[in-house]
C-alpha cells in the first residue's frame, strides 16, 4: 500500500515536472504589433483583417509604446512572441545594427524603387511618414498658435501644455521656440551650450507642462480640456476629428517628421508570414486606404499618388505641410538618446 502511494507521488511529481519543463507545442498565429489607439483600429480594418481572410488564418495584433529594450529582451530570450512590429526610426537603426531583425526580402515587397528612399532599409520597410506637431482644439481656441514660440507663450494662450515625456522632440521644440532656425536645430543641439539652452527654455514652461507617454493621451487631454495645446501625432488628430467630430487643429510649421517601419523580429516563429504581411500592407491599393482614417503619409510612391486630394492635404508628406517641417535626425538620437534621457530625467526631478 505504502509503495503504491509512493510510486503514485513519484509519478505525479514526474508529470508536474515534465509539464513544467517541456514547453507546450502549438503554433502561434501571426502576431503583428503596432502603436495602438485609433491608428491601430484603422490598420486592423485595412491590413490585419483582410490579410487574415486572404491567408485563412487568424492574425493577432498587439500594441506597444516603443523601446529598443522591449525588442531586445524578446529576441535575446529566444522565440519572440511577436512577428511583425512597427518601429520608430531609431529602433530600426539600433535593432538592425544589433542583429535583432530579419533581413527584408525586397523582391517580395516589389522592389526598393517603389518606395521613398527614407523608407528603404535592410531590416525594415517604411509603413508611414508621420509628424509630431502642435495640436489644439479649434472650438476652444479661435485663434490658435502658429509656432513653438506661441506654444511657449502662456500669457497669450493661457492653459496647460502637454509634451511627450523624454528628450526627443522636446529639446528640438524648445530650441525652435527659442528662435533657432529649423536647419540649425541639430547643430546647436550637438553642443553642450545648445543642450543647456534647450533646457533653459524648457525651464520657462516647466510648471505648465503635463507629460504624455502614449500617443492616445494627448487626445484625451485635449478632449477633456486638461490642456490648451499639446504636441501630438498628426494622424491621430485627423483621425479623432473624423471619428468623433472634433475640431482639433494641427500646426505643421515646426513639426518634426519621421518614418516608421515594419520589421520582422529575428527568428520569429512566423517570420515568413510576417514578410508576406508586410508585403500585403505595402501594396499601393491597400496602403492608399490609410489616409481616410489616419492622416499619415505613405512611403509607397504609387499609393501616395492614389490618395484623394481631400485626404492628402492633411498628410505630412503634402508639399505645403512639408515646407516648414523638419526631418528627425536619427543619427543624432541613436548617439545621444541615453545621455540626454538621463539629463532629461534629472531635469524633470529637480
Amino acid at each position, binding site marked *: 500500500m505504502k509503495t503504491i502511494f509512493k510510486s503514485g507521488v513519484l509519478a505525479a511529481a514526474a508529470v508536474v515536472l515534465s509539464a513544467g519543463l517541456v514547453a507546450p507545442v502549438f503554433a502561434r498565429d501571426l502576431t503583428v504589433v503596432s502603436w495602438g489607439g485609433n491608428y491601430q483600429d484603422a490598420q486592423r480594418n485595412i491590413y490585419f483583417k483582410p490579410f487574415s481572410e486572404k491567408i485563412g488564418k487568424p492574425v493577432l495584433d498587439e500594441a506597444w509604446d516603443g523601446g529598443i*529594450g522591449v525588442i531586445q*529582451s524578446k529576441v535575446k530570450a529566444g522565440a519572440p512572441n511577436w512577428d511583425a512590429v512597427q518601429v520608430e526610426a531609431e529602433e530600426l537603426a539600433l535593432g538592425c545594427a544589433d542583429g535583432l531583425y530579419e533581413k527584408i526580402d525586397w523582391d517580395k515587397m516589389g522592389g526598393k524603387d517603389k518606395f521613398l528612399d527614407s523608407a528603404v532599409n535592410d531590416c525594415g520597410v517604411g509603413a508611414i511618414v508621420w509628424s509630431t506637431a502642435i495640436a489644439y482644439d479649434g472650438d476652444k481656441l479661435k485663434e490658435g498658435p502658429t509656432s513653438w514660440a506661441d506654444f511657449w507663450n502662456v500669457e497669450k494662450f493661457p492653459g496647460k501644455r502637454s509634451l511627450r515625456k523624454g528628450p526627443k522632440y522636446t529639446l528640438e521644440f524648445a530650441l525652435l521656440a527659442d528662435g533657432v532656425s529649423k536647419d540649425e536645430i541639430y547643430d546647436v543641439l550637438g553642443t553642450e551650450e545648445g543642450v543647456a539652452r534647450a533646457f533653459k527654455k524648457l525651464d520657462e514652461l516647466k510648471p505648465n507642462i503635463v507629460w504624455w507617454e502614449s500617443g492616445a493621451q494627448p487626445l484625451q487631454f485635449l478632449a477633456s480640456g*486638461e490642456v490648451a495645446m499639446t504636441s501630438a501625432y498628426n494622424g491621430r488628430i485627423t483621425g479623432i476629428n473624423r471619428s468623433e467630430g472634433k475640431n482639433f487643429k494641427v500646426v505643421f510649421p515646426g513639426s518634426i517628421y519621421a518614418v516608421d517601419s515594419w520589421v520582422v523580429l529575428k527568428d520569429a516563429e512566423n517570420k515568413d508570414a510576417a514578410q508576406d504581411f508586410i508585403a500585403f500592407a505595402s501594396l499601393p491599393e491597400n496602403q492608399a486606404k490609410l489616409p481616410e482614417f489616419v492622416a499619415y503619409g505613405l512611403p509607397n510612391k504609387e499609393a501616395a499618388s492614389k490618395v484623394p486630394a481631400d485626404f492628402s492635404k492633411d498628410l505630412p508628406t503634402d508639399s505645403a505641410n512639408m515646407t516648414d517641417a523638419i526631418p528627425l535626425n536619427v543619427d543624432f538620437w541613436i548617439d545621444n538618446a541615453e545621455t540626454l534621457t538621463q539629463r532629461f*530625467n534629472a531635469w524633470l*526631478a529637480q
Partner: protein
Amino acid sequence: MSAASSRTRRSLLLLAPLLFFLIGFFVWPLFSMMSQSVSDPAVLRLLPRSAEVLADWDRNSPPTIPMQTALMKDLKAVNDDQALGDMVRRLNSARSGFRTLMGKTTSALKETANPPVDLVSIDKRWEKPEFWLAIADALSPYTDRNLLAAVDLGRNAAGDIEHLPPDQSVNGVILMRTFWIAALVTFACVCIGFPYAIIAASLDGWKRDLMLGAVLLPLWTSLLVRTAAWFILLQEQGLINDLLRAIGLIDAPLALIFNRTGVIIAMTHVLLPFMVLPIYSVLITIPKNLMPAAASLGAHPLRAFLRVLLPLSLRGVASGALLVFISAIGYYITPALIGGPSDQMISSIIAFYATGSANWGMAGALGVVLLVATLLLYSVYARLSSDEVGGR
C-alpha cells in the same frame, strides 16, 4: 536509519514544487539581476587584442598606430551582430557618439576594395582620447560603474570615486522620494484601514459582508482600470471637481491630478485592501467580550482601546503596513498616469533603462539598490517587532 532517510526524501519530494518555484521565480531572477549590474563582459569579449595593447596606453595621449591596428583587427574578426550590438551599446552609454562611430567604422572595414589604412582615416573622432578611454575603461569583466551611478556616483578620469554633477543623475533624490511617497501612502492606509477593519470586525451578517466586499471588489479589479478610473474622477473637469463646484464649495477647480495629492489618493485606494485584510484577520480572533470587560472595570472607551484593542491588533497593523509599504515602493503605473514629473518613482527610471535604452546593467543596479534599501528597512522592522515580543 533507512526509514528516517526515506522520510526525509519523501518530505523533500513534497517540498520540491515549492523549492523549484522559489529557485525559478525568486533566487534565479534576483541572482541574474545582481550579476547583470556588475558583470561587464561585452567589450572584453570582442576586443582581446585591443585589451592587450591598451594596457600600455597612458590614458591621455592620442591613439598610437598599434592601438588602431589592434582595434581594426578585433573589429574585423567580429561575426556576431548581437554581440557587437552589446559592445556598442555599452560604449555609447559611457561616451555618446559610439553608435554612429562604430557603424561607420565597421562598414568601412568591410570595404575590401581599398581597405582603410587606420581608424583616424575612417573618422576623425578616433583621434580623440575620450573614445579610447571609454574602451579602456570597459575592458574589465566586472564593473562597479552601474552600482555607483545608481547612487549618483562615478569615477573620474583618474579613477577616483566622486559625485556626478546634479544635472546628470538624480537617482538619490528619486529614491528618497519613492520611500517618502510609500511612507505617506502607508500612513494614509493605516488611518483609513484601521478604523475600517475595526468597524467591519465588529459587525456581522450582511453588513460585514458588504464592508468586506467593498474592500475586496477593487482588489479583484485590474490595477490599470482603477488608476484610469481615478484619472476620470480627479481631472480638472472630473466628477469630484464638478461636484464640489455644483454644491458651491469651490469656485476654481482643485488641482487633484498630475501632482502628489492625486498620486497619494489613488495609491491609497489601490493598496487599502492590503492594509484592511491583515488587520481584520487579527481583529476577528480577538474575543469580543474584552472591550465590554474593560468597560465594566471602569475603563474609558479610549483607554480600553489603547490598552486592550490596540496592542492586540498591532501585529495586524504592522504586517499590513509592511505589505503596503513594500508594494508601494515598486509602483509604476499609478505615478506615471496620475502624477506629475516630480512624483515619478524609481520604477520609472528602472523602466527607462530596461525597456527604453536596453541598459540592463543600470536597471539591475537600481534594482539592487532598491532591494538593499528594502531589506534594511525590513530588518529594522523585524528588530522592532521581535523586541516587542521579547519585552512581553
